[in-house]
């Protein structure tokens, strides 16, 4: 590197200050949530606002569980079920379809792949009115089926796995397996799946996070008696309760699992998002 470009690429202290400031702003709302969730109710009125955590968390969270109409535990269980089932299905169907698009030859392949790309751009949320009517007709209203079945596959997932399988699975291995008389399904299981595991893992994380956080549709088809966690949160926060410590304790419990997952697998998630952007 020439000296001038070395100077150009070097990070100055100012750079670190700027990035640290942004980092603080990113983290502060989490910290504030944690502080209020662990303090007694009167702390929220303090001026200046409280900056240190307290010890009242279990007290506060206990009040969440005491409110039967909040159905927090039901919401938690439902969210785990919905997110897990959808994640499992999206990863499996996307990996299968991605493998087919990347490595198998069939009529109409390119056109069908293009269709998938186009559907990624369509705001399908705008179809929720008849979809909601469908749920009534199918008698799925207030049933977890309504928040699971429509999301069992994902265009983004298929495309992501297709891109990854194209380069990560070797054609020679597939050919060799074919010569040995392997069926396509065995090739998928023994050759493709091991090779695409990293991408499948990232897809699983992204899908799980998306499902865990989903709000508009679950709110439309589930009742407060049988909610997902986010629907339950929306209900707690709709102004009916003014007990901020309780509301924040619930919010913290609903958020923390995700933040933990994010911190543990952060490197992979970042990698997945950045790779996806370049490929798309």
């Amino acid at each position, binding site marked *: 590197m020439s000296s001038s470009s070395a100077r150009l690429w070097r990070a100055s202290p100012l750079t670190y200050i700027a990035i640290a400031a942004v980092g603080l702003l990113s983290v502060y709302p989490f910290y504030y949530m944690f502080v209020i969730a662990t303090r007694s109710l009167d702390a929220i009125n303090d001026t200046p606002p409280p900056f240190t955590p307290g010890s009242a968390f279990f007290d506060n969270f206990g009040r969440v569980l005491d409110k039967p109409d909040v159905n927090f535990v039901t919401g938690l269980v439902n969210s785990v079920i919905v997110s897990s089932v959808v994640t499992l299905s999206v990863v499996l169907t996307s990996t299968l379809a991605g493998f087919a698009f990347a490595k*198998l030859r069939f009529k109409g392949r390119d056109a069908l792949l293009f269709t998938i790309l186009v559907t990624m751009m369509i705001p399908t949320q705008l179809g929720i009115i008849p979809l909601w009517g469908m749920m009534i007709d199918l008698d799925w209203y207030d049933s977890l089926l309504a928040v699971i079945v429509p999301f069992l596959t994902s265009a983004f997932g298929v495309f992501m796995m297709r891109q990854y399988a194209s380069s990560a699975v070797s054609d020679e291995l597939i050919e060799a397996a074919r010569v040995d008389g392997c069926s396509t*399904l065995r090739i998928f299981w023994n050759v493709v799946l091991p090779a695409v595991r990293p991408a499948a893992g990232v897809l699983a994380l992204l899908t799980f996070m998306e499902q865990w956080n989903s709000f508009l549709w679950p709110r439309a088809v589930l009742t407060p008696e049988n909610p997902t966690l986010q629907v339950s949160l929306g209900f707690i926060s709709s102004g009916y309760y003014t007990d901020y410590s309780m509301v924040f304790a619930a919010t913290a419990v609903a958020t923390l699992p995700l933040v933990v997952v994010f911190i543990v697998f952060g490197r992979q998630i970042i990698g997945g998002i950045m790779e996806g952007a370049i490929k798309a």
Partner: protein
Amino acid sequence: MSLSATTTPPARLDPPGRPKPPRSRAGRFGRLDLKASPYLYIAPFFIVFGVFGAYPLLRTLWMSFHKWDLVNEPTLGSTWIGLDNYKALLSDDYFWNATYNTVGMFLMATVPQLLLALFLANILNRPLQAKTFFRLTVLVPNATSVAAVAIVFGTLFQRDFGVVNWVLSLFGVDAIDWHINQLTHWTAISTMVDWRWTGYNTLILLAGMQAIPRDIYESASIDGANAWKQFWSITLPMLRPTFLFVTVVSIVGGLQLFTEPLLFNNGSILGGSRRESQTLVMYMYENSIENTAKAGYGAAVAWALFLLIMVAAVGNFLLVRKTVK
């Protein structure tokens, strides 16, 4: 995660010299397997998308030409009224208010967000210490749910004890009631959107920047171009495909804003006592799921929004292509 772990080239459509699959062992089954398997593997996506994605979208269009009761339609039926729903939209003040709110909050949130993301990506593109740590911190807001963001920010923007007003008071600004008018609504809601999405867009832009070959910068700096000039004449033009991706995703997502304004207004679908922050998706919801007898009208709102999104996406495409040459 690295995609360069293998040197195998991407699949070709018709690789030369590929041996014919053996027919000895599997025989008939083998041929059927080869022919049918690909379609079986891609079928789940097309079935689910067809039933729960494409069909409802088209049915929305069909409904929008009817007077339609979402719950009683099977017994009461529906009445074809042609373009009447769309004509009614044109003179509906609430519809235009929702359109104004949607576009206004979209611009208020997206323009500063993308500028900040561009700035941050440019910083993160330098050789930093603790690179992964910084990337994680800017992305962590994206791991929270919209519901949680709305709850926490709703409190941060509270009039009497909110942290935002406390910080402003340090600069001598009187307490602001963030629910008082359209501008305050928009400001609070745009802040939530930006907090959650700036880091995500930063990483996407950063990925685009890292794909630009370094030696282009090398030769530019030998020619005496300073950092600012290099940013304008190399980074921005070469970032165009990524920038296009980011803006299209922002348009499609941003114009469908729903949860933040809903929870900012304590779960009211009206978006404030005077509909200060009711968006088009909220108005669609109000005229269908909250009021099932008006579902035909809600469907017209949905398609109006669909058209708005398409016009914005295509317009953005032309604009980006033209300005960044």
